[in-house]
């Protein structure tokens, strides 16, 4: 879902007039140019990167309290709010059912962070979402348990399980190159989707962050890995069940991977102690890709383009046929907090 901010006519005129006053004698052309600049500035997708060097204190485990604080900083910056209640009230309403699509493929070393998921659940409940209306999920319960999640399928607790517990829809959902059965968790258990991927290198896609995490929603991801997963990832994210429910991506970049992904390889991972949040998954993926490229350069590795696995699917997701967000760095505002 795009985070491009719109402006109403009144605001636009107000800002144009302000621009005119400042520009003074530059005339009509100058006025229009200023307006366009102003418009372009307003249309930027925002990607917030929040860091905490002391996230793990002196140890190796993420500190829950600091994680909650880091999440608040990230989300408040994204939504321009002063406190977490206002922030989450802007995102969800009581009565909604919320799915947190985590990524548990990388085992304990490189999966969606448990403390992060707990922090999100805490804020959702404070915003009026019942615990039992929150589902933490991925494709397979065993994989989730291996990562440290506790499978929970009843009572008034936060629900936590894989699609293996409820199966996929029988009917195919299709868009261009994609024809797949969707997880019933997505179709029947939640009307709001919060994507909680991990910042990772990927041996065929180049990187796997927000958009590719949706491969965990379908029954046949193996069919969509040829050609660097392009255009499959973009086509998949066009499915209405995904596109209309997606509200926010909170990318776990506390431990990230610059090579050898998506499996966990300690030698190619680094403690980044950061979260990335955005409502534009394309902008977030583009930004994450640049972070991985910088890390690769720092480690003396070839670029992903040089390795013939640049994530071209990001550009496809932004093209005129998809418009899932922007990959134009001039239209992405990266905010570090």
């Amino acid at each position, binding site marked *: 879902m795009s985070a491009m901010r719109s402006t109403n006519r009144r605001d636009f005129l107000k800002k144009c007039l302000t621009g005119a006053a400042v520009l003074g004698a530059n005339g009509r052309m100058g006025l229009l140019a200023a307006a366009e600049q102003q418009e372009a500035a307003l249309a930027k997708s925002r990607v917030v990167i929040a860091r905490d060097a002391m996230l793990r204190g002196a140890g190796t485990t993420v500190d829950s309290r600091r994680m909650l604080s880091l999440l608040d900083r990230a989300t408040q910056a994204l939504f321009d709010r002063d406190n977490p209640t206002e922030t989450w009230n802007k995102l969800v309403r009581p009565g909604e059912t919320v799915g947190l699509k985590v990524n548990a*493929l*990388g085992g304990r070393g490189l999966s969606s962070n448990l403390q992060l998921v707990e922090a999100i659940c805490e804020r959702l409940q404070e915003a009026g979402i019942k615990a039992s209306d929150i589902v933490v999920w991925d494709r*397979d319960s*065993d994989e989730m348990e291996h990562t440290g999640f506790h499978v929970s399928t009843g009572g008034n607790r936060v629900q936590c399980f894989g699609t*293996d*517990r*409820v*199966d*996929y829809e*029988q009917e*195919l959902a*299709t868009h261009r190159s994609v*024809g797949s059965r969707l997880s019933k968790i997505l179709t029947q258990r939640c009307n709001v989707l919060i994507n909680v991927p991990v910042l990772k290198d*990927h*041996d*065929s896609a180049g990187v796997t962050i927000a958009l590719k995490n949706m491969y965990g929603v379908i*029954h*046949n991801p*193996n*069919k969509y*890995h*040829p050609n660097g997963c392009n255009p499959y990832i973009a086509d998949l994210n066009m499915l209405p069940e995904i596109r209309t429910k997606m509200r926010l991506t909170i990318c776990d970049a506390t431990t990230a991977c610059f*090579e*050898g*992904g*998506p*499996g966990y*390889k300690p030698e*190619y991972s680094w403690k980044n102690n950061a979260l990335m949040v955005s409502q534009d998954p394309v902008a977030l993926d583009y930004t994450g890709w640049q972070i991985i490229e910088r890390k690769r350069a720092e480690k003396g590795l070839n670029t992903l383009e040089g390795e013939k696995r640049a994530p071209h699917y990001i550009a496809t997701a932004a093209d005129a046929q998809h418009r899932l967000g922007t990959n134009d760095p001039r239209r992405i505002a990266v905010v570090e907090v």
Partner: protein
Amino acid sequence: MSRELDVREGQSPAVRGDRSPLSCPLDRRSFLQCALASGAALGACEFAQLLAPISAWAGPQKQDDSRFTVEAKFYQKLPNNKKIKCKLCPRECTVGDRERGYCGVRENRGGTYYTLVHSRVCAAHIDPIEKKPLFHYLPGTLAFSLATAGCNVNCKFCQNWDISQVRPEQVPADYAPPKLVAELAKQHDCPTIAYTYSEPVVFSEYLMDAANAGHEAGIRSVVVSNGYMQEEALKTAYGKMDAVKIDLKAFSESYYKDVVVAELKPVLDSLVTLRKMNKWTEIVYLVVPTLNDGDAEFRGLARWIKTNLGVDVPIHFTQFHPEYLLKNLPITPVPTLERAKAIADAEGLHYVYIGNVPGHPAQNTYCPKCRRMLVERVGFTASRMLIRKGSCPFCGQPIPGAWHA
């Protein structure tokens, strides 16, 4: 991908997820057909009892992966990052640790590649062998037919996509080790085990072991395959087969790329290799309206077969039915199939059949010399078989095939 389930009554109820494939593999209609075809007095209750040890499927539930997981035979370990390169099919998937290949049934675990479908049977039936279709191989007999999940292509018209285009853990399956398969085939008077329905390329290891077990018990093996396979794997795995049916999806690379998600040339290479191996081979060509039904394509195909395989290789032009991702096209008109046959006949092929059209006279086998009918078929049964000692009883023309068990 098999076309043999184009006639839907043979489709496994288990595939639809409502009961075990091996606990009751036949519906009443199929059972009666098979019983009539073989003349065997096989009771449905006997059948269910015989296969009772196989557990019943009751919705989504965990399968014990470990019993189905065996190291794959055709792959190469790569030097970096525990990656492997699969050498089973021409796709040659490079698979990272904890990832699967395109087929979805082979997984890299720490740099070792595993098949997840050894003995993991998701569909099993007793079919007339004509249903494969194999028309020149033991006509009038039954084939103990089975499949695992998975496929190495993704045909937009697949009739069995609910087992071929899924991961093994997503479909009900039972444990059927090779010896059990051979025993069951023998007990039910099936002279052959048929690997079919999904795509046997992806369960090559199981197929090889089951073929060995079958041969030890005096049971032959036949495979129904897309032929999209590397040469070494083909020679090793299908070297154990007694007969092969190849689905040649089209005679153009563009169709293979767009509709099948594969390539034509490796399939043609496989057909030539099978010919050199002296494997009895029949070809099915599913005629899809507007996509692979041009005269030039039919003619090119017939000429290629004549030049590279010879005029005695049977070819079946079969009728398409809208399914899976190709629901916008109509059923193939019978005149289109007849046109394909006429072109292939004119090019000199001796055994050109029309399939999926019950009652059509081009289901029968005719002597290429005297034109007399030699095998009459009704539905999937051979109702009259006149071939004697591999020859036409009227003119003595040898008729290629394996006519008697």
